């Protein structure tokens, strides 16, 4: 099977994520909104979700995007780009003790 390489710059990725985020990031009261970023070791990809947790109600988790580029430096650029444009809390999962290549801080600390 041929490998399809989708070239997506980190700015394009960030744009897609933000667009999808805005659709469901309704900023309702008594509701926690978080962006969940998962290191998917099975697919070697990074998955982005919007987690919507209204107090005492069931939670919703909406897929935003998947980065097929498994390079941590690339992810760092995407996250950096996102942080310039949104204040939403980011939660990192599956990164263990890994460290951001640029900032040299622990990823799981956010």
């Amino acid at each position, binding site marked *: 099977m041929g490998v399809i390489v989708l070239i997506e710059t980190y700015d394009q990725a960030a744009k897609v994520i933000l667009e999808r985020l805005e659709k469901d990031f309704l900023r309702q009261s008594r509701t926690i909104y978080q962006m969940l970023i998962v290191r998917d070791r*099975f697919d070697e990809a990074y998955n982005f979700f919007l987690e919507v947790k209204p107090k005492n109600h069931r939670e919703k988790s909406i897929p935003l995007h998947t980065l097929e580029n498994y390079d941590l430096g690339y992810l760092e650029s995407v996250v950096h780009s996102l942080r310039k444009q949104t204040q939403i809390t980011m939660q990192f999962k599956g990164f263990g003790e890994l460290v951001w290549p640029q900032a040299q801080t622990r990823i799981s600390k956010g």
Partner: protein
Amino acid sequence: MNYDREPHGVYFMIDNKSFYASVESVAREDDPLESVIVVMSEAKNTNGGLILAASPKAKELFGITNVSRCRDLPDDSRLKVVPPRMNLYIKKNLQINEIFTQFVADEDCYPYSIDESILDMTKSWRLFGRTPLEVAHRMQTAVHDKLGLWTTVGIGENPVQAKLALDLFAKHDNDRIGELTYETFPQKIWPITNLVSVWSIGHRTAAHLERVGIHSMDALAHSNPYELKKEFGIIGTQLLALAWGIDHSQLSKLLTPNDKRWGNSQVLARDYLVQREIETVIKEIGSQVASRMRHHQQQTGCVSLMIGFSYASAETDGRSGFAHSMRIDTTDSPDQINQYLVYLFRKTWDGEGIRNIAVSLSHLSANDGLQLDLFKDPHAQIKQNLMIRVLDKIHDQFGNTALIPASSLLHGATMLERSSLVGGHNGGNSFD
């Protein structure tokens, strides 16, 4: 019973534990056995939401079953609801089958549904362990290591035993493995009194069996074959074989149905009452089915239309809908097919509210060129035909929404909205 002359093989029937929910758990780095997750389709025609899958923990805590409705779902903060991503599940299913084919030859791996496969391990199981049980363990581990998903395995000496072992034992086993052989069959299967739990016995058959005094698999196995056949017809003999764990099917000999057909159906998001709106949707479905048929280089000689009434109309009318077919001159032109469909619709429709539409094309034949009609302008016919090919090419290359009839923008049309659905549910983000 002498089983010596029955086929003795090693068959695995494998399914994925709560497949969609497990895939979604893994994508979020959650343990699929511990997470409380529900996959809910919120397509417009599902009336607020249809539950496609629930994780084992969600089933246990809230008693959720598949295909329950959103209104049955408790509003509990422990529960996580996620939209379906059918394309992702198809991708995972392919990955799983790829792992299976490390254990069997490609031609011995038969995908049965989106989360089930039958493997004929007869020739290869010895390469991977001392017992079939050990091989099953090894396969489960391989899938879990590579994809994070848990599989359930039924082992049998033929396909039906494997399927029963999966449904009745593996799903309740701590190791998620169940085994059946000709030898253990009576001891394990015959005590079953809940006949519907046995694969291939539905509610109606179960009720029928109860009526004639058969209340267990034991009784079924020991009933008179001639009476069974008299009461149930050919199904009676199949039931008897089932009760003894006998299955002569040879998976390598694929069945080809005599009259294949192409079809599609949809449930509408609301009751449709306006003729123009209904006809728009009929034509959209007709064009879509015709396009699928053309991709297989075929043409049709018979169109069928099924219309299901809304609850209200069905109540006052007494009928739940109508279905009509008509033989036509063979064609693959969407315009002609749609003309016939609209004709069938107008002939019978009498203003009822409509909730279901299904279209199918049958009496298929190979499309080996355009048959010109003597009574029509040949140039117009050729031009029409060329136009269809060009449209198909554009759709293949740029997607089905690249070029659409203006009618699909009218109120009531559903094609644009459904173009991103897979199997009627959300396919997932377009370029994930």
